[in-house]
């Protein structure tokens, strides 16, 4: 683009320029800093347009929490009333592929309970001169855990995952370690980037929401972005090509293959990658063997199938907040099996 013909008005009207002036978007800041270098004769106009935008940029209105509580109560009361009117019809999610009528099992996640329930291991690690106390949270199969870190960042940890983080963050960065899967809503703090180390992948952000899936048994590490901007880096630099790092925007996902060392960027299906954080089990053209693994993780059970079950057959389905029985009931018709549940052991018999 030839910015030498741009007037103050043109700069003012340009949406990426507006982001630059407000300093909200690192990509815009970089872009326009480069443009100023390229067109030094426009610097004065650019500065004036920038000041104009800054002078009319506005704060958010502060809302009294009491006001919000009152209004929220009203809308909840309204919903309860409506529910009675609707004769307690059972609602269930039926996406196109498999339709299952079933009752909803309600997941009550009590953060306080989890705090006592989950093992809390404090370890000490030496980093150069100072000692940092780390807290380790192990979430077993069949469970999920939501927690808030010291800086206000919200982390929802999926089953069979471990998060390790310092009791207090450094002044220059917020660094944590993940094995398994978690959904992050990172509190914005431009002075302290938030870094998540998982396998060979470092994910760096300032403040956004995104999902990371990095299970030890899965050769793929996936980082899916919902809001904001995220940088994903291969910390091993196994490949000498130029794909050690990719930048992701909303609706983009990075997939790192630990076997080939490839780091690729693509779009993703939101329900598939982060449905779990809303209580949704989703599989699409997935072999029964993998579905069984997913269910073992999700419900914390052990599933054994006899050799009459064809575990290579593929299925597609969506379940929200369903009990294990309901999921198995829906599957047994199609996959043609019987099952029995004995405590946390499930046996599947082919027909």
């Amino acid at each position: 683009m030839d910015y030498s013909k741009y007037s103050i008005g043109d700069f003012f009207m340009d949406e990426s320029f507006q982001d630059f002036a407000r300093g909200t978007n690192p990509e815009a800041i970089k872009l326009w800093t480069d443009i100023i270098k390229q067109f030094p004769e426009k610097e004065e106009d650019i500065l004036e347009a920038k000041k104009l935008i800054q002078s009319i940029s506005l704060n958010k209105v502060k809302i009294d929490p009491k006001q919000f509580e009152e209004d929220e109560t009203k809308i909840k009361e309204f919903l309860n009333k409506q529910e009675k009117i609707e004769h307690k019809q059972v609602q269930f999610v039926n996406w196109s592929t498999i339709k299952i009528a079933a009752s909803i099992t309600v997941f009550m996640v009590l953060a306080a309970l989890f705090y006592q329930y989950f093992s809390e291991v404090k370890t000490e690690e030496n980093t150069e001169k100072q000692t940092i106390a780390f807290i380790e949270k192990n979430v077993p199969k069949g469970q999920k855990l939501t927690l808030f870190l010291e800086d206000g960042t919200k982390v929802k940890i999926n089953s069979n995952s471990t998060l390790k983080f310092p009791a207090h963050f450094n002044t220059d960065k917020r660094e944590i370690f993940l094995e398994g899967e978690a959904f992050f809503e990172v509190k914005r703090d431009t002075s302290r980037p938030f870094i998540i180390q998982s396998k060979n992948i470092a994910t760096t952000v300032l403040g956004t929401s995104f999902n990371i899936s990095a299970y030890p048994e899965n050769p793929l590490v996936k980082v899916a972005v919902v809001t904001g901007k995220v940088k994903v880096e291969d910390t091993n630099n196994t490949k000498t090509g130029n794909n050690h790092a990719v930048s992701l925007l909303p609706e983009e996902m990075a997939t790192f293959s630990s076997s080939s060392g490839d780091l690729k960027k693509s779009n993703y299906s939101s329900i598939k990658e982060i449905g779990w954080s809303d209580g949704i089990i989703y599989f699409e053209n997935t072999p029964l063997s993998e579905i069984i693994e997913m269910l073992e993780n999700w419900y914390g059970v052990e599933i054994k199938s006899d050799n009459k079950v064809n575990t290579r057959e593929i299925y597609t389905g969506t379940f929200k907040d369903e009990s294990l029985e309901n999921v198995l009931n829906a599957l047994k018709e199609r996959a043609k099996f019987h099952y029995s549940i004995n405590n946390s052991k499930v046996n599947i018999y082919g027909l």
Partner: protein
Amino acid sequence: MSGENLNLWSLFKKGDKDAFLKIYHSNYEILYSYGFKISGNSDLTRDVIQEIFADLWEKKSTVADVVHIKAYLLKYLRRALLTKITAEKKSQGLNTNEENLFEVSISPEDLLIKNQISKEQERKILDALAQLSPRQREIIYLKFFDELDYQAIQDITSLNYQSLRNTLHKALQSLRKILAIQIIFFLLIINRL
């Protein structure tokens, strides 16, 4: 982001209360801020927000598929407030031309750079904004308060792209004229921002 939004919206349409409350939570602040700015009436804004959400829940199965939830709700709120205010002004025998219905007042607390400038500069900026038409102020509000893109602002205000640009451009011209003298001082001070 719209992938997530679409998912949330379709869950709400299927009667998922959590999804509905999530939409309510994540949009309450922006809806209240915008509604209060354009109507200048806190109670009315709160009532109308409740009404539109109650309305949405009742119509959930027939409501359109929405990609940009925030813009959709802002537009809904704007229309509902407009109807209420028009009725009220009519009953008082006042002018009900849409251009004059909304006041969009901007106060010192609203200015993002309030702490970086002097009282004098602050007054000049507010004066400059006060001299714009209500529609110009509304667009500035949507653009520089909530960082909505031009497409979303077009949806909310029902202006086409060209008139939106023209309105914003006119606002810019008047701002520059009013702020011209002090912009030099201004440059020196907020250059360090």
